[in-house]
């Protein structure tokens, strides 16, 4: 099957045609040279191909996060689904497995964006089949995206807000589909949303047969490189190569076995070190360091879109409603020490209110010159004390209820933060460790003064976190924080389609958050992977997160 529509006309070339085409090509070259360079984050001619010298065959044993709670990838927010299920599905666009960032074709071989950014047209591949033998058409894309953008009752999809400005989704013909926007959004934002690993294409018929809810449907057909073989709950999910995969020559491995382990556990590490698995994700730092020293093993670290933070309940506690107190708490944190505290438990890095590794946020070197991020905390603590005094809390605050999620990193951090608050600001808090499900109940009900946990963004873009984490009614704005000036800037960031202007707005928003913190950033998570060198074709060192590149189609075994 070709990726492009075949041309049935004669391929003969006469002198006149040759001269015409040469002229057109020359003119095009001149025009192209004067156009701005193409956005490097997307490349329409980069469909995944096998590496030179890649071999076929073998079984890859991959260990990742514990088993999924259900099977509906759209409704999920965890790698527990993406890890085992992604290889069975495709998306409209995808991130290149070479760098994890460049947006490349997937089921759409080409896309056009109207000059006013109000219409996205996707040209779909022909001849693609679902695993049950049905043809893939634009109707499936429409059904998938109608569900994501406007989920039925009882179906909750974390990516729905990304498509809030998608109006009509129009099937132009069986292999062309248009997304008409109610208002324009930045290209990088929308293309990123379409390339998100979560937005797998499922059959229209599958959705209809299950009333739009796939939580308990284990093996619904996809078009992906691997097909379901068997699954043992909380143990292993086994897949085999899809011989009819549209991308000829891929996948390269015959069988994929995905083993479920809790992240950062010795058990996961032991499975890799003993050779029971070939590739392990979400390793604990101790195992990762050991793997890095092992012969024949490669270890990589990469960024993840998760912020570790604690929230300050502004509605319940009058003192915490004062921005000076919150800034003082923010400045009293010795973040380099906090990263050090958990170095043997989970890999972390210092960061502020926007991912420290995003091109639009303050670069790390610049950030570490700011108060609150310096290695020497003395100036920051002095400023924090001044702010507390100015706010009328120079003598400190007593009896804060600090709700701690029952996860090793949070328990370690809570003790360290408690000590820092006491030592630097004379703020006394009582730690209350609770199970994860209780933590979210308490956080949403506002039953806390301080509460520590982690939250993930659904898209690696500041707009997503400005609305979900810091938005006035943002679902993860547990502090109940509002700042009209910030919300105004955030709204501009969401709508600005010029990248440079957008970057300036993001920096401005960051400065506002520094002065009036909606949460107190503790650290940003990193991911530790390690694999035996026989696994080739993938190195996640430059990947952003663990949700977009989990297909294994280009991976091969030496």
């Amino acid at each position: 099957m070709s990726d492009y529509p075949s041309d049935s006309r004669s391929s003969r070339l006469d002198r006149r045609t040759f001269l015409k085409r040469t002229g057109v090509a020359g003119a095009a070259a001149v025009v192209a040279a004067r156009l701005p360079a193409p956005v490097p984050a997307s490349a329409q001619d980069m469909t995944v191909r096998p590496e030179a010298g890649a071999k076929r065959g073998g079984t890859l044993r991959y260990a990742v996060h514990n088993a999924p709670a259900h099977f509906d990838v759209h409704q999920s927010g965890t790698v527990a689904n993406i890890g085992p299920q992604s290889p069975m599905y495709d998306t409209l666009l995808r991130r290149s497995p070479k760098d994890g960032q460049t947006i490349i074709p997937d089921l759409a071989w080409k896309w056009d964006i109207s000059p006013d950014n109000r219409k996205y047209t996707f040209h779909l591949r022909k001849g693609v089949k679902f695993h049950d033998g049905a043809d893939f058409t634009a109707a499936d894309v429409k059904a998938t995206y109608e569900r994501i953008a406007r989920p039925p009752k009882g179906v909750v999809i974390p990516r729905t807000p990304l498509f809030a400005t998608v109006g009509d989704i129009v099937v132009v013909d069986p292999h062309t589909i248009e997304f008409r926007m109610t208002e324009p959004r930045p290209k990088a934002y929308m293309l990123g949303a379409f390339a998100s690993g979560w937005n797998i294409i499922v059959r229209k018929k599958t959705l209809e047969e299950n009333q739009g809810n796939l939580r308990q449907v284990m093996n619904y057909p996809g078009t992906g490189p691997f097909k379901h073989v068997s699954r043992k709950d909380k143990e292993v999910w086994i897949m085999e190569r899809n011989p009819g995969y549209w991308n000829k020559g891929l996948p390269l491995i015959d069988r994929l076995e995905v083993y479920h382990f809790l992240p950062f556990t010795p058990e996961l590490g032991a499975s890799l070190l003993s050779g029971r698995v070939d590739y392990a994700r979400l390793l604990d730092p101790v195992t990762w360091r050991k793997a890095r020293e092992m012969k024949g093993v490669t270890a990589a670290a990469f960024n993840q879109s998760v912020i570790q933070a604690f929230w300050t309940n502004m509605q319940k506690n009058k003192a915490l409603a004062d921005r000076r107190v919150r800034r003082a708490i923010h400045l009293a944190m010795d973040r380099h020490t906090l990263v050090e505290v958990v170095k043997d438990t989970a890999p972390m890095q210092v960061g502020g209110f926007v991912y420290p590794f995003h091109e639009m946020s303050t670069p790390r070197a610049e950030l570490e010159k700011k108060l609150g991020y310096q290695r020497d905390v003395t100036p920051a603590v002095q400023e924090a004390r001044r702010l507390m005094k100015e706010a009328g809390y120079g003598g400190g605050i007593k009896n804060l209820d600090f709700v701690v999620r029952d996860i090793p990193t949070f328990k370690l951090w809570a003790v360290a933060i408690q000590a820092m608050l006491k030592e630097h600001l004379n703020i006394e808090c009582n730690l209350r460790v609770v199970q994860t499900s209780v933590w979210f109940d308490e956080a949403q009900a506002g039953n806390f003064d301080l509460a520590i946990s982690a939250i993930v963004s659904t898209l690696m873009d500041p707009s997503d976190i400005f609305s979900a984490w810091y938005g006035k009614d943002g679902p993860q704005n547990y502090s109940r924080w509002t700042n009209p000036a910030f919300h105004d800037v955030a709204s501009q960031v969401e709508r600005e389609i010029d990248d440079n202007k957008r970057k300036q707005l993001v920096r401005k928003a960051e400065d506002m958050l520094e002065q009036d913190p909606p949460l107190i950033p503790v650290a940003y998570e990193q991911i530790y992977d390690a694999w035996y060198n026989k696994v080739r074709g993938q190195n996640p060192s430059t990947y952003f997160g663990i949700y977009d590149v989990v297909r294994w189609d280009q991976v091969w075994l030496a």
Partner: protein
Amino acid sequence: MRKYLARRAAYAAVTLLGVSLSVFVILRILPGDPLVAILGVEGHARMTPADRVRIMADLGLSDPLPVQYARWLVDIAAGELGKSFFRGDTVAELILHRGPISAEIGILALVVSWLVGLPVGILSAFKPNSIPDGLARAMSVLFIAIPGFWLGMLIVLALLFWFGYKAPIIIVHFWQDPWQNLQIVIGPAVVLGLAQGAYIARMSRSCLLEVIGEDFVRTARAKGLREGLIVMRHALPNALLPVITISGVLLGFVLGGSVAVEQAFGVPGLGRALVTAVIERDIIVVQNLVLLYAAIFVLVNVLVDLSYAWLDPRIRYS
């Protein structure tokens, strides 16, 4: 005997009914929202009240509690045990798949506890206050004191770092591959068995010390019987009754201990399933597994009681 059995069966049924009611009520009054695990953190944060109502109804959690309890009892009577909140797997499937591994661990642990505990107890009793007795007593205190999950972790790490070895990571049943199966169950069985063996050693030592002071043992010695024969034929059968009683109680510890030890060894048995279900707030799985453990405990204790009559002809159930 029949009357006795019927009475014990009635007691057992009442006990299990009490357990089921307690577990059912406790799980429903505990704080925490199972929808966090089902929808994930982001999904849970974005859920509307209407979504919540719909999902709770789908899970059967919006019915009145008496209705939910009655439905569970009907499910148990039908042998279905209900479905996990997650993934839609039935609890019966879970028990059938993972139960054999946990049962093997429990039985092997009991065998290990007797194989280790009884000889050590006999040795200690017949050489009281000797060096072997002191050593045996010290070791038994040590194994009682060491938490099984900690010892398990040490064993796992030692095997990994010294020999690069880890037991198979998925369930392999005995009938599929006995060697692989043994690698999975032997570690937890030994750890659990050693701890219980320590109790048995101490109990058998004290019972034997009491028995060997009795007249009939002195008579046996006066007759010139060999020491081995005195122990095996005369002293031991009379000292075994309390040891068997404690074995029944210890099985409860084995069941309880297996939860942590399976977790430490990474054995995908019922204990580990229970831990995961508790973390996920999968109350259907938790309530059924707790009831299963309670049922096993009750059954073993009935069997222990019945074994008294077989071991001691003076005991009659009428």
